[in-house]
C-alpha cells in the first residue's frame, strides 16, 4: 500500500567511515530509516554519535562510504553535479547551528540567494523573500546585515532562507545550539508552526531536549547506530513513569 512519495527521505544501510591514521572511525554505521512527508523529526544523541554525519549524508553534502539515501525516491548517489546542486537549491533547506548567513549581504538578500540559483525573477525573488521574512517575524529588519541582528534573529533569517524555495525537507543541524533557552524555544516553535503550515518535513539533529515536545518521532543515535525510535507519546509516557 505504499503511496508514491510517502517518504520524503529513506536511507538504506547508510554508513560513513573516516580513516584517521590507523583508526577507522565509524561515524555512521548502517542506518536504515524512513522519514515520512511533513514529519517533524528529531535525531538525538550525544555529541559524536553521528548526528551531523547523518545530516551531511541526507543533505547530499557528503558521500557515504556505504548505503543509499533516497530523497523523494531518488537515489542521490545517482545524481550528477548539476542535479545535486538542484537538489540542494530546491528540495532541501539547510539550517545550521552557526546560522551561516553571508555576512556582507542584508537579511533580504540572504533570503533571495537560493532563488537566484533556481532562476526566480528578480522582482518575484524580492517579493517572496519579503513575505518569508515577515512570516518569521523580521519584516522590520529586511535591510539589516547579519552582524546587526541577534542570534535568534539570524536564525530566523536562516529559517526564511531554508524555506523560501518550498523545499521537500528542511535539515537543521543543532538549530538551537547557539541560542539561549528562551530564544531556542521560540525557534523550535517557529519551526513547528512552519512544519504544520507548509507540510514540510523537518529533520533536526540536536541534543536539545526541548525538541522532544514538538517532534513526531525521535531517533536516538549512539555510536553511529539507531539505538531506538520513539514517538512523542512514548517519550511522554516514560517521563510520567
Amino acid at each position, binding site marked *: 500500500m505504499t503511496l508514491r512519495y510517502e517518504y520524503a527521505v529513506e536511507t538504506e544501510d547508510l554508513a560513513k567511515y573516516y580513516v584517521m591514521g590507523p583508526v577507522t572511525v565509524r561515524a555512521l554505521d548502517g542506518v536504515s530509516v524512513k522519514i515520512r512527508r511533513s514529519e517533524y523529526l528529531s535525531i538525538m544523541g550525544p555529541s559524536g554519535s553521528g548526528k551531523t554525519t547523518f545530516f*551531511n549524508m541526507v*543533505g547530499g*553534502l*557528503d558521500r557515504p562510504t556505504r548505503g543509499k539515501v533516497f530523497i523523494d525516491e531518488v537515489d542521490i548517489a545517482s545524481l550528477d*553535479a*548539476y*542535479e545535486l*546542486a*538542484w537538489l*540542494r*537549491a*530546491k528540495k532541501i533547506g*539547510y539550517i*545550521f547551528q552557526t546560522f*551561516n*548567513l*553571508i*555576512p*556582507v*549581504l542584508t537579511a533580504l538578500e540572504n533570503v533571495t*540567494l*537560493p532563488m*537566484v*540559483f*533556481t*532562476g526566480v525573477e528578480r522582482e518575484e525573488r524580492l517579493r517572496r523573500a519579503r513575505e518569508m521574512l515577515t512570516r518569521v517575524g523580521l519584516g522590520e529588519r529586511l535591510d539589516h546585515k547579519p552582524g546587526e541582528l541577534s542570534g535568534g534573529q539570524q536564525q530566523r533569517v536562516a529559517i526564511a*532562507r531554508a524555506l523560501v524555495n518550498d523545499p521537500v525537507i528542511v535539515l537543521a543541524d543543532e538549530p538551537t545550539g547557539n541560542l539561549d533557552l528562551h530564544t531556542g524555544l521560540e525557534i523550535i516553535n517557529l519551526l513547528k508552526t512552519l512544519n504544520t503550515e507548509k507540510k514540510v518535513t523537518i529533520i533536526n539533529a540536536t541534543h536539545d531536549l526541548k525538541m522532544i515536545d514538538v517532534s513526531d518521532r525521535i531517533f536516538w543515535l549512539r555510536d553511529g547506530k539507531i539505538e531506538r525510535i520513539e514517538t512523542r507519546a512514548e517519550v511522554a509516557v516514560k517521563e510520567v513513569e
Partner: protein
Amino acid sequence: MSGEEGVKFPLSEAFSFSLESIKRRFGRALVTMASIVLGISFLTFLLTTGRIVSILYGEGSGVAVQFYQLWMAVIALLICSVGIVNSMLMSVTERYKEIGTMKCLGAMNTHVLEIFLIEALLLGLIGGGIGAVAGWAIATVWQAFTQASPVNIFMVSASLWTEFNASNPLLLLANPLIDIALSVIIALLAALAPAYIAAKLSPTEALRYEV
C-alpha cells in the same frame, strides 16, 4: 528530472555578485588593488620614461639601458604578482564558510570559480587602469619638468597610448593600454589557483573551516 529543473547562475548574476562583494569588502579590495596599482604604475612609469628619453634623444644610450629596464620591469611585475596572489589567497580563505553556504544553496563549482575570477578581473582592470594612468602621468610630468620642451614631451608620451609595436616586448609594454591588459592577466592568473581550490571544496569541508 524534467527540463525545467536545473540550477541557474547567469553571468549577469555572477557579475553583480562579484561587484557587490568588492563594494562591500572594500578594505580587502583596496589591499589587493594597491599591490596591482603599485606594480603596474612602477612598470608604466619606468617604460614611459624610457620611451620619452629614447624618442627625444635617440636610441643612443642603446641596448644596455633597455636590458636594464626590462629587468626592472620584470622584477616590478613579480613583486606585484606575489602581492596579488597573497591577497587573493587571503580573500578566498576568509570566505571558505561563505563558499560552503553558497554550495548548500545550490552553487556549483563553476559558479564559485566564476565569482572569484570576475572579482579578480574587475580588480585587475580597475587597479591596472589606475596604475597605468598614474605611472604614465607621473613619468610625463616628471620629464616635462626636468627636460627642455614640455610640449614636445606631452606629444611624445601621448603617442605611447596608440603605439602597438610588437617587434620588441619593451616597446609593446610601453603602451599603457598593454599594461592594463597585463594587469588583468596577472590578476586572473593569481586568482586562478585559490579560486580553483575554493571551487573544488566540498560543502562540508568548507563549512567546517574556521578562520
